């Protein structure tokens, strides 16, 4: 089925695009409304579906954001066919992965039909025309359920789009669905989703990282060419690394936060996830820029990244000074496994950069552990306040209660998961009078210190700092769920950039001995996403890691194309 029932009490009818609350009403609705089920409709499409496109899309190089738009604009492919192929992939693969929370097939097809019509009339098309996109479920989408991975919002359907979503829509991308995530972005494995865990396409017994795990799994398995994620302490970079794709956490304020269900307002960022840096750059071009709906949005003009990447000598990195973080001993002392694999891949990557003429200097990232601690004070503190609005009074799930405190207790108690509660408690404690100075204020001081340190590094003519994105590859499902601190340690290397509000890119840099992907993190100076794109793109031209696809994708491609033969 292409429509998904989110939770047990909530049904979304894609035909008339309404949400029905209880089972009885749903049955009644189904009997009257479904003259023609969406599936039958889809099968009609499938019949007219060009097998050539299916074959062509099976090729890694053809399934990029850029080639889809290009082929669509040239008239080679129809938007409807593209969407149907991707819906088919979701249909086939998501049963296993659980990357999506909502798939709105009807809506996607409608947009595709509209785009085809637009093409036929020769009207101008956006830079992402006909590219299917999956949106993390904490970004508001008008008319599509937005849960932020929490039960408390399982019936929440926003009447407004997040700025990032409306920008994608305006660029003619097609939103196909909403992806799974750790509840409110709190987690590093997507196991802490209020609905179901998502699995890693490279090995479904392992986690896909988090909190943008659904988006990462969807892109890595080829269910969508690109996706939107959000990054508070590593939530884009870590799952990108675990799933072998690219992810960008932009400079804080570069991409509007309007419509992003807030976790920690001073750290939250929205960014793209895709297979290659080139794709990230073209999506980021659409996302970035000032938004009057977000007071923390930066006013500076956004450069044209395509021009920068196509400039002569852009891929020769001789003007770039790389700061390489060597901290093997520190990582191994923290009890992470497979550190050798990580360090091997990392050293190879550094070698690639030296071949690309980049100047390499060894540096160390001080205050790593202090930064982690500060993050786990600041983020929960802000979260404790940001999440206060989920009380069951105005929207979201409400439990019947005899009086108001019981209403709060029951609604929040039942609607929120244990990790969310833990962080709300932590944050509430840290902000309480008498503890504020010892925790929150101290954490802000550490944040200031870390920012200053990184600023100093960039002032020493350093352009990029590189280090592994994560200290290890994807771990087994359930491995760290019992130990929150172990889970928190996942964010060790991604947090400094978050605290300082710096842009950071994760690109695949190889595989460990279990053939699980590993990620390389490139941290840039304020608003220097362009340099990250240059280095990342040059790296990907020199390496092949980003062109690898998981086995399940190759299986899908071979079985479906065989069937066509």
């Amino acid at each position, binding site marked *: 089925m292409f429509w998904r029932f989110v939770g047990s009490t909530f049904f979304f009818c894609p035909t008339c*695009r309404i949400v029905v*609350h209880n089972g009885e009403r749903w049955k009644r609705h189904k009997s009257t409304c479904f003259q023609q089920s969406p599936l039958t409709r889809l099968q009609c499409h499938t019949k007219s579906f060009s097998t050539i496109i299916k074959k062509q899309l099976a090729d890694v190089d053809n399934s990029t954001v850029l080639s889809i738009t290009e082929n669509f604009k040239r008239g080679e492919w129809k938007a409807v066919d593209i969407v149907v192929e991707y819906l088919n992939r979701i249909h086939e693969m998501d049963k296993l992965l659980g990357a999506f929370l909502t798939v709105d097939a009807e809506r996607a097809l409608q947009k595709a039909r509209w785009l085809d019509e637009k093409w036929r009339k020769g009207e101008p098309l956006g830079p992402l025309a006909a590219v299917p996109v999956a949106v993390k479920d904490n970004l508001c989408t008008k008319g599509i359920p937005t849960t932020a991975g929490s039960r408390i919002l399982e019936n929440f359907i926003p*009447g407004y789009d997040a700025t990032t979503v409306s920008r994608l829509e305006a660029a003619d991308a097609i939103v196909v669905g909403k992806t799974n995530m750790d509840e409110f972005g709190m987690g590093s494995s997507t196991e802490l989703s209020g609905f179901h865990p998502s699995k890693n396409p490279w090995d479904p017994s392992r986690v896909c990282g988090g909190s943008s795990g659904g988006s990462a799994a969807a892109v890595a398995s080829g269910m969508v060419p690109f996706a939107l994620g959000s990054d508070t302490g590593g939530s884009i970079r870590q799952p990108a690394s675990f799933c072998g794709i690219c992810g960008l956490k932009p400079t804080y304020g570069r991409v509007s936060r309007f419509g992003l269900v807030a976790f920690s307002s001073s750290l939250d960022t929205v960014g793209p996830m895709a297979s290659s840096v080139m794709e990230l750059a073209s999506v980021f071009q659409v996302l970035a820029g000032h938004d009057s709906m977000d007071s923390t949005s930066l006013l500076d003009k956004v450069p044209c990244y395509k021009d920068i990447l196509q400039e002569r000598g852009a891929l020769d990195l001789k003007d770039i000074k790389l700061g390489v973080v060597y901290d093997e001993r520190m990582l191994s002392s923290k009890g992470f496994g497979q550190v050798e694999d990580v360090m091997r891949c990392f050293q190879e990557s550094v070698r690639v950069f030296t071949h690309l003429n980049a100047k390499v200097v060894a540096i160390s990232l001080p205050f790593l552990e202090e930064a982690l601690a500060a993050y786990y004070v600041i983020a929960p503190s802000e979260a404790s306040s940001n999440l206060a*609005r989920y009380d069951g009074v*105005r929207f979201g799930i409400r439990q019947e209660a005899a*009086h108001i*405190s019981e209403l709060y207790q029951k609604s929040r108690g039942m609607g929120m998961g244990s990790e969310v509660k833990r962080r709300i408690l932590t944050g509430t404690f840290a902000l309480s*009078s008498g503890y504020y100075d010892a925790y929150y204020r101290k954490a802000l001081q550490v944040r200031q210190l870390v920012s200053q340190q990184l600023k100093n590094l960039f002032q020493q003519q350093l352009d990029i700092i590189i280090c592994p994105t994560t200290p290890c590859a994807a771990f087994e499902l359930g491995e760290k769920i019992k130990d929150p601190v172990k889970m928190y340690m996942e964010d060790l290397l991604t947090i400094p950039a978050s605290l300082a509000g710096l842009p950071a890119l994760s690109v695949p840099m190889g595989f460990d001995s279990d053939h699980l992907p590993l990620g390389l993190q490139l941290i840039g100076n304020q608003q220097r996403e362009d340099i990250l794109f240059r280095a990342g793109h040059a790296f990907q031209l020199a390496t092949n890691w980003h062109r690898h696809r998981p086995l399940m994708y190759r299986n899908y491609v071979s079985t479906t194309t065989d069937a066509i033969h």
Partner: protein
Amino acid sequence: MLRNKTLLLFQVLVSKSGKCCLSFSHTRNNLFVSRRQSIQCSVSKLRYIHCNCSATQKTTLSHPTLYSKEEIQSYYEPVIGIEVHVQLATDTKTFCPCPTRFGAKPNSNVCPICLGFPGTLPLLNRKVLELATRAAVALNCEVALNTKFDRKNYFYPDTPKNYQISQNDRPLGRNGYITLPSGRNIRIQRVHMEEDSGKMLHQGASSLTGSTHTFIDYNRAGIPLIEIVSEPDISSPVEAAEYGEELRRIMRYIDISDCNMEEGTMRLDVNISLRPKGEETFGTKVELKNINSFHFVSRAVEYEIIRQGSLLLQREKPIQETRLWNEKSQSTLTMRVKEGASDYRYFPEPDIPPIQLEPSQVDDIRRTMEELPSAKRKRYLEEYGLSVYDANNVVNEPSIAKFFEATVRHGVAPKLVVNWIMSDIMKYLNQKRIEITETKLSCESLAELISLIENKTITGRIAKDILPILMERGGSVTTIVEERGLQQLTDKNKLEELVKTTIASYPKEVELYKSGKTKLLGFFVGQVMKSSGGKADPVLTNQLVKECLSQ
């Protein structure tokens, strides 16, 4: 995005079961979600301990008027501080584009931002900052050039985000003062900006506690307020009312709020405690709420002084609590007892960057500031030689003061202008319940009117008749006088004739007068005035009547 506000109708309705329901409906694009949920906000013991428990019963129910005011004041002195919330007169709310119009249908002036929907962010209305800065300057505060917003966290259904965006450690204004008409200065501790909460309508009880269900109207949620906190400098019930009135006057002079206590655009909370005379430490503080007129401010404070004083004299201690002024019983009643200090867990609002004000901006505001009531009063005494009473009266209303000054500028004696304004004009305005600016009366015509009386072209009586015409239709006084032939009758011969004929028609009275009832002189003068249509020169008439009768 949010412009499609019609898309989200947010209504409170009553379901068949009598519970309060919130229902959302999307009207455009056939977008779904029509759901009803019932909130039953009937609260028993939530944040406050209701005062029905036996421990507190004794203190709250003790008869408060056992001792007289004088008796209490010979032992104790009151310490009074006032917190005032003033709604800023902006067109839109503090952080979203919703209108601030009063009296709109419940939950019609709302949008996802002021309802605190997921993903929405506050956008500061620059006008709020401007008006608040003007207030801080007018209250002689030090204006913080580097200020910020903070979140005040507490759970309550009328606060959509369950935190209020307010200011904590860096308020916009600090260390100010105002000068009361009595000349006393009351220090202002701080002035800060914040957003208002929604309005709750409780069913079955006067508060959330004990109500069967509660309606919430979020129209008010997000409306900009400034909170003005005074130092505990106020020493009497009368002064408390004076302070409130003066504050209101200042806010109206600088045009940042209409300060209507009935509509709640100005709200007053009084903190009051008693301490033995001459002592430095403060007693236990009681907060008074729900006072919606200045008259009741002094009544409520007085009641509280007597209540607390009686308790103290009975060797009982007042408890720290919030009490509501009850208009019907003319007394205060316990609303809630504080469970110790509440912890609002303030922290800097991360969604709004810190605010930087340029010193030049503040200077501009200071330079272009209207003359404030206290300065005006002083000037009226010195420049115009008005009495304190008259000066206070004229200064009371900004529009009146403006009109007064403009009239005086036309060269009329200030005292005469005050007399006209305070008697006939005010009477007319009060009758019609309008402002002077809403009438057709111009300062030129009032000046003209007064000078016509002065040069004896018309009588005072006639002027009183002309005034309503001026107020309703405007125009030149001279034209009206000429058109209607209202000039004063000063021709001695004509007047003498009139006097003679009038007297001739009252032979009986003449007899009586001649037999010694000289009091009847007034009667004759009146009759002459009447037959002249009010135009007769009163002084001359008086003289002629006397002469005529003595013949």
